[in-house]
């Protein structure tokens, strides 16, 4: 039987300090990579709203050199935010695929989707465009069963902000 020799590093020793410094450096590198990934996720999630990508570590006094435990907290909170953000984005993608399919069906058979409306926001696109199944010529069309999909793309006119 072989016995593995274990070198114990005593807290307060030079070796311990070097180990901790290397660990902090590694954690900071991880934080940098996670920030880059969160940034890409943030960009790819635009223009969807309500996708929470904020990493919220446990309250700590900000603006100073963090110790090992605090850096781990920051890293773990970023990992959590990333996971939650990715899950939400995937859920949105599935919903948006359904809405795209709905647009196709509305255009194929508007009467089967009376008054239904899908917007660019529903399919994860920027802008104010929306598809709306409406009767041709108002009440006459509704009575006669003449339905169509009206595509509107005009955004509301820009107005000056109060106090700007």
């Amino acid at each position, binding site marked *: 039987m072989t016995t593995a020799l274990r070198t114990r590093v005593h807290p307060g020793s030079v070796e311990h300090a070097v180990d901790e*410094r290397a660990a902090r450096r590694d954690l900071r590198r991880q*934080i*940098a990579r996670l920030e880059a990934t969160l940034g890409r996720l943030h960009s790819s999630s635009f223009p969807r709203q309500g996708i929470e990508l904020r990493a919220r570590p446990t309250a700590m006094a*900000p*603006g100073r050199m963090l110790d090992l435990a*605090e850096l781990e907290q*920051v890293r773990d909170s970023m990992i959590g935010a990333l996971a939650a953000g990715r899950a939400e984005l995937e859920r949105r993608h599935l919903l948006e695929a359904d809405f795209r399919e709905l647009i196709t069906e509305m255009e194929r058979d508007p009467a089967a989707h009376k008054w239904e409306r899908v917007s660019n926001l529903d399919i994860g696109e920027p802008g104010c465009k929306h598809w709306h199944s409406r009767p041709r010529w108002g009440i006459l069309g509704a009575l006669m069963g003449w339905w169509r999909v009206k595509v509107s793309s005009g955004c509301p006119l820009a107005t000056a902000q109060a106090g700007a």
Partner: protein
Amino acid sequence: MSPLAPTGPDGSETQGFVAAELASEFPGLGLSWTVVERGPGRSPRELRERLRYMSNRIGGRQAIELRNQEVPHAYRVFFRQIGIDPDETRTPIEAVVLSRLQQGGFRSRGLIEDAVLIGVAETGVALTALDADQVEGSLGIRSAIPGEDLGGAGLVEEGVLVIADDLGPVTKLFEEAAGRGQVSKKTRRTAIAAVQVGAISQMSVSEALWIAAEVMAAG
């Protein structure tokens, strides 16, 4: 009292110190500054025009992509590494862009503030303005020690990163000076300091300082 020396004869910036423990933990952390022989005042028409022109160049799409650019990304990373949530306390460049979006344009707030804003907006580098006659010796970055105050603006917590001179802390990192060193109507000489982090190049820092100094000198 020996206030900050003027910038070198070739107009180049001065490199400040970084406390040894910080330098070893944060490679790339640095402070540079330049001194302009100007105080506060109203921005001339040309400068306000420049702000309007800059406003037209920044929109929502740029704001969305901003955090992925090299310099803004470096500050976001550093903020996280010192326990600041950059989505709550914005980095200087993100704060500038956000204010542009919220206000519909860049607003002139005075010569010094506009010079700093232009330097930040053009390069992304974090700049802060100080009264050069109220700071002494050399500027640098270090951790606050127990019992220090921000030159009359209140105590600063132990360990918080500060910009300090030979007398003590002048301001917390990435914040405007509120005590000694704060720019006021009595300011005759202005020190513009740039905080460098991570992989941000010295060239970017020099460019930011040069832009801000040039704007002030021309005003």
